[in-house]
């Protein structure tokens, strides 16, 4: 199979957008964020949809008049680079809402510095693997049913063994979908 024909390419998976579940709605999320003064954290382990939720909140916040300024941190990014600092906090004002994906990567000093500098902004929204950096907006969770729905949408049909796949990856949907990619690439789809 050509890689581009695999239904589980990273690019196709990324087109799957965040689905509020368990009674949570976009309106409720935005209302809670407002009640937290637009300073909050999206929390959860790997593969729970934190980044997707952050990305999908951004246009809704822009529609409220915020100017979104984002940086994405990766493993080992203990400090913001000069370019990241510029993108995030240069000349900020109350219309700016700062989004930091992977804030748990920052060192204590870098986090304290960012917190201090973000006071001039209209808000600070982060994702983090652990709670405690900011009040929690949402603790992201996944379910076997969610994985089943996503797999069905991508594969275009029902696929067996999703419950076991979900358990094997401890709820990490991204890792589960990578296994599905490998299964399809190996002809086991």
């Amino acid at each position, binding site marked *: 199979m*050509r*890689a*581009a024909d695999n239904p589980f390419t990273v*690019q196709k998976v990324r087109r799957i957008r965040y689905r509020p579940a368990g009674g949570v709605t976009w309106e409720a999320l935005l209302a809670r964020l407002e009640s937290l003064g637009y300073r909050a954290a999206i929390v959860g382990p790997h593969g729970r949809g934190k980044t997707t939720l952050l990305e999908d909140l951004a246009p809704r916040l822009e529609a409220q008049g915020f100017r979104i300024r984002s940086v994405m941190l990766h493993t080992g990014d203990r400090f913001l680079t000069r370019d990241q600092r510029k993108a995030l906090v240069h000349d900020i004002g109350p219309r700016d809402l700062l989004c930091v994906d992977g804030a748990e990567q920052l060192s204590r000093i870098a986090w304290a510095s960012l917190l201090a500098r973000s006071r001039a902004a209209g808000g600070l929204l982060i994702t983090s693997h652990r709670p405690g950096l900011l009040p929690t907006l949402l603790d992201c969770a996944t379910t076997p049913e969610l994985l089943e729905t996503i797999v069905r949408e991508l594969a275009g049909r029902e696929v067996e063994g999703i419950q076991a796949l979900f358990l094997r990856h401890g709820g990490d949907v991204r890792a589960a979908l990578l296994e599905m990619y490998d299964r399809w*690439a190996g002809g086991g789809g």
Partner: protein
Amino acid sequence: MEELIQVETVDGRTAFRPGDWIEGTVRWQLPKPPKTIELRLFWSTEGRGDQDLTVVETVPFESPDAQDQRAFRIRTPEGPYSFSGRLITLNWALEAVAEPGDEAGSFFITVSPTGEEIQLNR
């Protein structure tokens, strides 16, 4: 539904060798005149990992009307070749993009010494 922006090559040709000229036409029917329309020749990857994307040439179309068409002529670069394996596919495409807005039309091509996508699995 018909695309608002269409990219076509002469005779619908999709296979090109490095150094070949790609000739064609971009046609659009938009609700109002765009500020700019730009044709981009680019390659991108799709597969198990993150996407790489490089625009190798752009052709701006000046003073576009809402309904208009423009001819283009672009030379294909020496590489990378179009290829596909289990982990990654490298696609070439022409894409015309109108701004402001998000209207775009695209046309996939292959670029390789044979004009066909190179299969890594064989």
